[in-house]
């Protein structure tokens, strides 16, 4: 983790605990096994993966793939039956489970806000469990409400049933971040939200993550969400085995096997284009052709393809942010993107992330 990012994190979270808790920690699952008594096959036979500090790891897979189980093993909501889980190099089994959970943010699909407590009190839950002084809690709650773009004076004293679904979900995230945990677990956090609000919650969370840089384990069954949100994606198959663990770009370019290819869908080429922007494309020079229109260079290649097709396959002119012409986007140029990963943004992070 670079020191620049560390600096970023501490400035975003202000008064958070100094030292250990305020930085993100690396998470390592080491030969994790979970078998339920009475069932012949283990839910998770042997799972190993490492999430670097400050990255978002998506657990994705069909139902029965054990993705939620794997996540709940981390904060010991479900007891491990084999292997070990290390957070910052320290086994989660070392500490009492309540103490461990207070250090790990936890967000679930139904949010689980306490209906008998105000937004303020809900967010203050873990700090209170940790025995923070009153004024520090108050300050922290205010800071978090601002972080999730809710007005502390307006929303702070409301009860959960007085909020919209999206607001509830944001408060749930704020509550999980309250004690500035080094790790955040999110179980289908946006699964119960309608598609339009889901997209804006996703964008909101990515913007938030830019600032707080937590290590995040995020469970979803939606491969599009996985591609959009993840730094890395762990695709699990039925029976709880890991099919592939890689960046979104790698998975789309080189699916490990037929299961992965099938899971990410026949339109994986299109999905892959969504990860790149026109800045990644080797454009054709402008040599007298009459372009059908203009596109900003930040446009995703997928959107550029749609625009070219809408223009009847005629090329479009690509403009730099300063208005200068960068080149021509043609069908062939776009097609080349899929030719090799070398031409792509090496991080595999969707370019959309950088946009407001």
């Amino acid at each position: 983790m670079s020191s620049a990012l560390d600096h970023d994190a501490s400035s975003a979270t202000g008064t958070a605990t100094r030292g250990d808790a305020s930085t993100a920690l690396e998470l390592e699952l080491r030969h994790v096994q979970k078998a339920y008594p009475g069932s012949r096959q283990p839910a998770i036979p042997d799972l190993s993966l490492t999430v670097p500090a400050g990255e978002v790891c998506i657990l994705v897979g069909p139902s029965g793939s054990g993705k939620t189980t794997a996540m709940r093993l981390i904060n010991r909501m479900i007891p491990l039956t084999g292997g070990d889980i290390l957070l910052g190099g320290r086994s989660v089994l070392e500490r009492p489970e309540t103490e461990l959970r207070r250090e790990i943010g936890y967000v679930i699909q139904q949010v689980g806000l306490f209906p008998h407590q105000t937004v303020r009190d809900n967010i203050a839950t873990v700090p209170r469990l940790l025995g923070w002084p009153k004024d520090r809690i108050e300050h922290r709650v205010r800071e978090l409400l601002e972080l999730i773009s809710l007005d502390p004076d307006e929303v702070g004293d409301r009860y959960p049933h007085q909020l919209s679904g999206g607001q509830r979900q944001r408060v749930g995230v704020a509550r999980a971040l309250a004690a500035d945990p080094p790790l955040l677990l999110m179980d289908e956090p946006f699964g119960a939200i309608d598609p339009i609000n889901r997209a804006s919650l996703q964008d909101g969370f990515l913007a938030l993550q830019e600032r707080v840089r937590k290590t995040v384990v995020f469970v979803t069954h939606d491969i599009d969400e996985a591609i959009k949100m993840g730094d890395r994606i762990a695709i699990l198959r039925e029976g709880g085995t890991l099919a592939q663990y890689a960046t979104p770009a790698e998975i789309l370019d080189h699916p490990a096997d037929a299961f992965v290819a099938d899971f990410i869908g026949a339109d994986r080429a299109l999905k892959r284009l969504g990860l790149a922007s026109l800045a990644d494309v080797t454009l054709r020079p402008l040599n007298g052709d009459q372009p059908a229109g203009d596109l900003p260079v930040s446009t995703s290649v997928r959107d550029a393809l749609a625009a070219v097709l809408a223009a009847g396959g005629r090329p479009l002119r690509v403009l730099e942010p300063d208005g200068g012409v960068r080149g021509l986007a043609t069908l062939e140029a776009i097609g080349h993107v899929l030719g090799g990963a070398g031409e792509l943004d090496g991080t595999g992070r969707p370019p959309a992330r950088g946009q407001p």
Partner: protein
Amino acid sequence: MNPPVLIAAGGGGPIIPNFGGNGHAYACEQANRLFCWGWFSHNWSGTLWPALRQHVVLVLIAVAIGFAISMLLALLAHRFRPVEQPVIAFTSFLYTIPSLALFELLIPVPGLGLSRATAEVALVAYTLLILFRNILAGLRNVPADVLDAARGMGMSHRQMLWRVELPLALPAIIAGLRIATVSTVALATIAALVDNEGLGVPILSGINDYYFKTELIAAGALTVLLAVAADGMLVGVQRLLTPWSRGRAA
């Protein structure tokens, strides 16, 4: 042993109660009108008010003890599911025994006899089913996602109970208390058969008086008013304790 019945003050007296005053001041009583305010005010401080106070004490003790027992049993059944069925079976059994029979059956039990203890034992017995069922249902109805979140944030069992489960069970618990209290107020009138106190005393005395009904009506009305007042108070308590549920139904 004395007859356990109708030993109430004034029972078996003259048709027109003798208040020790001169006759013409009690024209209403002599005419056997339905309700005589004169009698009511004359007997308020001597008979009705003390009976009302005793009644309140009878009910308070019964509901308090019943609540304590039910709460313990409900917490136990919440933690250990197998406890539920036996408790339900036993308290339903108690609830099924008609009040007259239960009061009488307790009299020969050593240490009880004709006493307040007998009355309280029977009254407590009737509160158990309602209170146990409501408290347990309240605890069980806490949404699973709320419990999951509480546990996931690192609450211990005790913290979950005090900070999440009990507060959220409050509406059901208070609903149980309302029902238990109101029905105990009504039932406690029968306690006068074994314990010579409470509003049951003037009620039985009034029943025994073939012509003069003011005492019966006055004591009966006080019983109903007491029940309504207790119910209203508990509604108020709930409003105070559960600010989050205000305006929720709207």
